[in-house]
């Protein structure tokens, strides 16, 4: 795939020229340098960030995502009657009340997007080996979408935080965050870190070189 795209415009990459770009400041450092000569940030030994952090953050995010769905997200007490609702439970409740739009938004932000992110990051990490139907460009776009959309998953956590802060009317109505709110926030943070630690240049390096540079990643 990459060959077909590259064959049209043959470009000399920095890597082929024996340089490695700093992800912080963009300076091209000679391959083998441990520290960026301009900004002093650490450079990956192989010239490319490994896949290990990606997988680590991703798995951490997945682990945090399980309690986020099992435990209650909100604890609402109305006149002493306490009700705990999980994410899915809340969505079901909204559907029962007929608020399909809100239910869809919650479902999208809290369930679909996180799961899609997990799948997308895992897909990107796995397809570095080459067996893929998406072009390099599409994968790059996918990566950017994932990185962009990641922060929006925090909308749930914000809603909980705002409700908790505003709705504290003692006995009448009180809303408190459940343990799932923290787990969900952690899960979102972990997946964002996973997306961030993914080095998009690995996509461009192509399958033949990914085996060399992503050696540590393949081990996990």
């Amino acid at each position: 795939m990459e060959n077909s795209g590259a064959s049209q415009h043959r470009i000399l990459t920095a890597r082929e020229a024996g340089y490695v770009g700093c992800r912080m400041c963009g300076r091209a450092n000679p391959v083998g340098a441990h520290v960026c000569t301009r900004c002093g940030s650490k450079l990956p030994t192989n010239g490319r960030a490994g896949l290990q952090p990606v997988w680590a953050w991703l798995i951490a995010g997945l682990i945090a995502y399980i309690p986020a769905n099992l435990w209650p997200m909100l604890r609402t007490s109305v006149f002493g009657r306490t009700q705990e609702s999980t994410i899915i439970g809340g969505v079901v409740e909204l559907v029962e009340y007929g608020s399909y739009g809100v239910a869809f938004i919650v479902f999208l932000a809290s369930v679909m997007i996180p799961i899609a992110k997990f799948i997308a990051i895992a897909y990107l990490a796995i397809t570095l080996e080459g067996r893929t139907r998406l072009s390099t460009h599409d994968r790059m776009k996918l990566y950017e979408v994932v990185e962009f959309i990641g922060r929006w998953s925090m909308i749930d956590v914000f809603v909980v935080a705002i409700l908790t802060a505003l709705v504290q009317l003692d006995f009448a109505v009180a809303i408190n965050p459940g343990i799932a709110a923290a787990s969900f926030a952690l899960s979102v943070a972990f997946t964002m870190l996973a997306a961030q630690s993914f080095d998009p240049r690995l996509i461009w390096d192509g399958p033949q070189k990914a085996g060399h540079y992503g050696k540590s990643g393949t081990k996990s």
Partner: protein
Amino acid sequence: MSDTEEPTPRPAELQVLPPSRSAWRNLSLVWLVPIAALIISLALAWQSWSQRGVQIEIVFSSAEGVNAGETALRFREVVIGSVERINFTDDLANVVVTARVNNEIAPFLDESATFWVVRPEVSARGITGLGTVLSGVYIAGAWDDDRGTPRTRFEGLERPPLAAPGRLGRRITLRASDGVGLGAGAPVLFRGVEVGSLETPRLTQAGDAVLIDAFVESPHDQRISSATRFWDTSGFSVAIGTQGVSLEVDSLAALLAGGVAFDNVFEGGEPVPDDRVFDVFPNEPAARRARLSSRGYGGVRLSVAFGDTISGLRPGAAVQFGGLEVGEVSSLSAVVLDPERAPGDLELIANITVDPVLLGLPSDADTAATLDFLETAIASGLRARLATSGFLSDRLTVELASVPDAPDASLDRDAQPAPRIPSVEVDLPDFSATAEGVLTRITELPIEALMEQAIRTLASIEGFAADPALRDAPGAAVDLFEAARDVVTGPDAIALPGELRGIAADIRGMIADLREDQALANLSIALANAAEASADFAVAAQQTPALVDDLRDLAAQAEALEADKLIRTAQAFLESAEAIVGAEEAQDLVPGLNATLEELRATLAELRDGGLIANANAAMQSAADAADSVATAADTLPSVTQRIDNLVVETEALVASYSAQSDFNTETLTALREITAAARAMSQLAREIQRSPNSLIFGR
């Protein structure tokens, strides 16, 4: 690893990889994050798993208001768990509520544990569980502080238990003829103080009575002894007695919800066993009268056969021994003596129950000991006989009394249905006819004697009036005047001052006028003048103030001039005058006074001629007529007596109609039941509202 910018070609460097760089060395530190997340998640999961508590099942007949995942389990109003799910028993007869209870509490859930659903309740005694209207119902539990064998399945109670396990007090069983007014939760009162409560009444096996469990809190439970009697305080009582009609209502709550009260009716009650059943008497007087704490319990059953009629003897009548109630008549029956020879010859049997303790036997005396005692007593003349229970009453009691000359008899231990005490007949003629007995008593009242006395009194009045001595009264006055004249004409009377003489002359002049006019009216004016004059007289003769006063009185009374009064006043005046005249100073009265008296006497004589005595006689005659009328009236007394009889009979019927089974009572009870039903409906309404508050808003 990679080549540097060297101008001169050199042999390619060997790619050397560090041999020690194992797979583990390649691992990034980032892996600590998922590991930590995993550990934390697992720890949380394990914690919640281990702390989720013990699962228990509580079986209720209805899970009204209980929601899975929402309804809390509380112990002393502290949440100790929550309901997880609700299902049915296999036969769909009951609801199984599955709940989780905290691990710390679970060991205490042994067989002492009870659970019930707390709902809002509106009753005559108040409103309870109001908080659950908003927060929803919860399941409350109670258990003692012993760690018994933990159980996981419990039978839920329909109502809060009478006494929470672990509460100090005593559980007793009461027996009542019916459960009206003895609803669950009704109070047990001791001198008006609530010391316990009742549970739901239940029928006995035979269905002839109602058993109610009651709980009396410590320390009041120590008051319960063999001397304790319970009575029903529900409703109200109307009593018609010698003090009039009295209506007693304890409290509105007692009126609607009922309740029982108890007291110790005599001193020295013994502790009673736990299985003792106490009877609930219909009212306090009945409870205080009853010596037997409980029919059929603690008493010795005996029977007495009576040859003559026992009408008036009723179940519940007292059995007296030496004037003290020792038991009561439990039932009455009739037995055919000899069916073959005389089919109509009945023997009337009263079954009685006697408390050995009240007979004076030790408290542990059993039936045999009591019978031994009675056997000895009967050998020495103890017999049963009927006796009246009081004045104006046709009720009979059974009296155990010593009859000295009774024929020989003995205790028949084998008699059916109970050992038989020999009886003696007593001549009680007015037993059989109730009305007759009452009327006899009324006719025996000393009405005739009273009337006779009245007639005699009137007769003596008449006799007094006709007494000749009374007619001689004016003569006596003449004598008096003469005596007075004797005194006045005494030598000392000369010494009276001149002024007094003048006054006397005035009086004489006035009386002369009086005589001239021949009218009594003028006497009034004359006496008024006399009164004026007597003022001077008083100044002149201070030694005679009483005389002056009497003169004034005379003048005053003359205003209202009536002949007899005038005479009486004049007489009094003359008496006073005599007294004064008798005094030393009066000796000095002038002869003018003498003349005055002379005139007075003349006046009196005229008055007498005027027919005073005749009038008095006429007055006496009319008094005699009056007495005759009274005598005539007395003749009609028998019919009055008859009416009183009728009245008594009617009163009796009235009193009887207020007894237990009368229409009035029934209607009152019906009314009260309707009030209770209304209260229940209110309670149901409150429950309904609590169950679905929306119905208030949306209607239904």
